[in-house]
Structures are given as C-alpha cells and as structure tokens.
C-alpha cells in the first residue's frame, strides 16, 4: 500500500520544518525561524510579528499608560532589528530576545518623554498591577473571591520591580536566569524576588492550610 503515499520530495526550504508526527501538527523551531528572519525572509518576519506583537504591546502597556508611546516603540524595535539583523545573535527563545530588547527601548523612551513633558512623577506604583482570577474555583471554595482579593492586594503592595518579576515568571513564563538578564540583576536576586512573592502567597493560604488540605482530600475521596 506504500505506493499510495504521495511521492513529494521536500525541497531545501521545507527541510527546515520540524515535523511532529504524533500530534499531527507541524512547527518550525524558533532558532531556525530567527535565522531566516536574519536573512530578510518575509515569512519568518510575519510569523514573529503575528506571534509576539500583542504580547509585547501588552507587556509594554504595564509600564506606562500611553498606548501611542508603546506602539511607536514596538514599531521602532522591529525596524531596528531589521536594520541591524546581521549583527544579531542567535536565540532559541524569540520571545525572550524580543522582550529584553523591547524593555530596554521602552524604558529609554519613557524617560525621554517624561523629560520632554517635564514631569518628574514616579508612576511606578501603578505599573505591573496584577490580578488573581482562578478559572476553576478550588473545591469547597477555598480560593474564593475573598481570598483572591486578599492575595491580589498583598501582591500589589509589593514594589513594582518585584511585581514585574512575578508576572514575568508566572504569566510570561520566563526562567530565573532570563528574568535576571532582563532586569539587570543577579540570578540569585531574581530567585529571591520570586521566593518573597510566593511566600506572601503562602502566608495568606497558610493559616488554614492543614485544614484545607484535609478537606480537599476528603472531598476527593468522596468523589471517587
């Protein structure tokens, strides 16, 4: 029956595709897409823009309440990358590479615009506000709205940099090492930032932890 399978020979371009036969999907690995972007390939550029423009925009808007500034910086980022493409390094995580470059650019742009408007205000207390909203409530309502609100308030009282580290870790999915590189701190410090935040989560859940766990196990047993 093998005669039925089509006899298409992949050309050089297609050989860069990493085919995952198990999940019936196909995807190209990011380092290859990045290399193709550096040669000026439009398909690679389109992929990168489509996949990451809104992630970057959303992240940028957490710094400053100025859509136009964030959008213009995003555009500058892409154009600068294109114009300096043969000097760009290799990367296996396009997202991290973009976020890091974008952050540098945006921080500079924000400073410049504040100088121009002669404002000295440190608006960082409003940056990187987080919210807690569980999709599935814990059994017996242990992560109920009251508790969510409590966690949210305590997280939003943390310094802005710590909140940023927190969302980079829990929402954007970056690693300790990447967060350190991005924020210009030591890996040890980026771990410390996350540890401190998770401890304050633990404190809120803490007082009833034993009790919650017992109830959870009981209700799980009952459900079986």
């Amino acid at each position, binding site marked *: *029956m093998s005669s*039925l*399978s*089509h*006899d*298409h020979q992949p050309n050089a*371009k*297609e050989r860069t*595709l990493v*085919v995952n*036969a198990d999940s019936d*999907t*196909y995807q190209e690995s990011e380092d290859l897409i990045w290399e193709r972007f550096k040669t*000026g390939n*439009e*398909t690679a*550029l*389109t992929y990168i*823009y489509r996949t990451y*423009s*809104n992630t970057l*925009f*959303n992240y940028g*808007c*957490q710094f400053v309440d100025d*859509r136009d500034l964030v*959008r213009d910086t995003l*555009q500058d980022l*892409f*154009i600068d990358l*294109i114009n300096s*493409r043969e000097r760009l390094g290799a990367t296996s995580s396009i997202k991290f590479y973009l976020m890091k470059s974008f952050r540098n650019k945006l921080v500079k742009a924000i400073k410049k615009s504040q100088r121009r408007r002669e404002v000295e205000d440190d608006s960082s207390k409003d940056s*990187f*506000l*987080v*919210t*807690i*909203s*569980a*999709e*599935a409530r*814990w059994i017996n309502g242990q*992560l109920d709205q009251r508790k*969510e609100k409590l966690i949210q308030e305590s997280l*939003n009282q943390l310094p802005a940099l710590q909140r940023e580290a*927190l*969302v980079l870790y*829990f*929402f954007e*999915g970056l*690693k300790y090492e990447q967060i350190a590189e991005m924020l210009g701190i030591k890996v040890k410090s980026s*771990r410390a930032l*996350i*540890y401190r935040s*998770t401890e304050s*989560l*633990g404190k809120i859940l803490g007082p009833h932890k034993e009790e919650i*766990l017992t109830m*959870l*196990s009981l209700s799980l047993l009952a459900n079986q």
Partner: protein
Amino acid sequence: MDYRNYDIEDFLQDEFFVSWVLHPNKENDHFWNQWISTYPEKHTVVEQAKELVKSIKYQEEQRLSEAEYTQVFESVLKANRDRNNRTFIWQPKYTVRLAATIALLLVAAIVLVLNPDSSGEIQSVKMLVAKTEPGQKRTIKLSDGTTVMLNAGSSLVYPEHFTDSSRLVTLFGEAFFDVEKDPSRPFEIESNKLTTTVLGTSFNVRSYPEEATVSVAVITGRVEVKGESGSSEILLPEDMGTFDVASGAIEKSHFDETSWIGWTKGVLVFDNQTLPEIFKELENWYGVKIEVQKGMKLEGRYSGQYLNKSLEVILEGISYTSHFKYSINQKTILIYDEK
C-alpha cells in the same frame, strides 16, 4: 529533585513545575502525570499550585487595535523590503563569479566568431507545462527564481524564460507560490477567469476546474486579484479572496492557515465537509478511485487533520464515525453499507 516534601510555595518556586503549567509539552506532561500517579497524596497540592499559577494575570490587558496592528505591520514589512533592496557590498565570492562570467563570455565570443551562421537567431519564447497526476506533488523553480509547489492533479503553463517586462503563468488546479521579488516585472497568474497579480509574496491559489470558486490565500506581501468581469480586490497577509466563477464576484475573508496551506507540508485537512467532497479529495491526494455502492446514502459531515498518514488510517477513522465499510483493491476503493 525530590518533590515529595514539596509544599505549595515550593512548587510555585520550581521553574520546571511552572513551565509545565504554562507550556505543557510531551516531556513535562509525561513526567508530572507519572509523578502524580506515584504520589497520589500530593495530587491536591499540585492542583492548587497549578490553579494559582494560572490565576495570575495583568490587571489590565491591552491589545493593539486592528488598525494599529496593520499600520505597524505595514511599516515593518516596508523596512524589511527596503533593507532587502539596499545596495549590495562587494564580497570576495563576487570576484570569483565575475571572473567566471568573463571567461564564459570569452568562450561564447570565440564560438560566435568561429560559427558566424548561428548568430542573429530570433529567440522565440518556449512554453513549458508542469503537470501532476492525482497522488503526486511537485515543486518547480521558474527562471526568475520563483518556486511553485503544485498540488495533486494540477498543471502550470509557464515560459522557459520570462521576458523583460512580464511574468505570466497559467494555473489549472492548486499551487502554492513563493514569488521572487521584482518590482519591474509583476508576476501574474491566470486561473479560470481570475487574474492574480503580485510583486513578490507567498500565497496559495486553488482553482480546480470542477469547483465553482477560485480561492487565493495570502501568507506574505500584497496581492491583487482581478476577475474577468472587472471585479477586483487587494489582499494582505491573512486575507483570502474567494472568486465566484459564475457571478464574477470576489469575497474577502480570513482563512485558517492549516486548512489552506497545510497541503504543502503534507497535512490533509477536512473542515466540516460532506463525504462526497472528502472522497473527491482523497482520490486526488492518493491517486485512487473511490466507488460508492449503488443506492447507498452518504450523510453527515466530517472534520479532521492528517499529517502524512496512509489512506487506510484515514478511511478507518471516517468509516468508524460515518458507519460504512470499505475494501481496497489496488487503486480502487469500494465503499459499502455496514449492514
């Protein structure tokens, strides 16, 4: 790493755990499912930690509006094209190429001097036809560097060499084009009363003669489609133009990339299609003949995606959900009733 003594904070602080929650894949899924089934007493604390990770979000989510998205995208594409067209820098390899070219010209001049009769011939444009039978696919490189991937049961008519002013080809069936950029010579594709004009892009054209529509799906760049009756439309990336052959109208919409471009990567896609439509696709894709038992009713619709799967695997799946039996006899498949 011993996770047995882990409490909720410890899980939250563990990169490997968090990356499983945010980006599950085969490897980490395998590990954590295995781990939880080994230590079922940790199931609830894992669930709690997982839920907590997933619940943390920005208080205000912002997205680019459609206009902002397109506007930024257009400037970015333009920058990339300008960059691609910038004057080139002399590199050592060009010296070698130049020397080779001069040598070739010298040889040609000598040949012409020795055989004066062969000079002055008028060159006529030679047309070539690339054709695929059902069950075949084929990639063709045209003289301008454009690559065309022909889907099964299709043909492309093209000149051996393009002239200085135009690049015109004719398509019957379906093909994916990756057109080499050349602003001085637009690339044109004629297909069943619809002409598609581009400068340098990649896109898919589906124009099987037995189908009532011609569809053009754009991946990169800018494409112009024009009907014989005068209708026209500009298509940008993620746009699809559907041309109704009978009425001449062009409808613009978005498209699902896998459904329309998947075939270039060996993905066969059925999107809520009737069984007769599916059998037609299968005949073309595998180069077989599918015969349906007389008087048998084919009802229902079917969706699915198959990457480089054999015909049996696909028929097995469809026959199970659509309740029919089949038998394969070399290149002929007989579909018959379950009873």
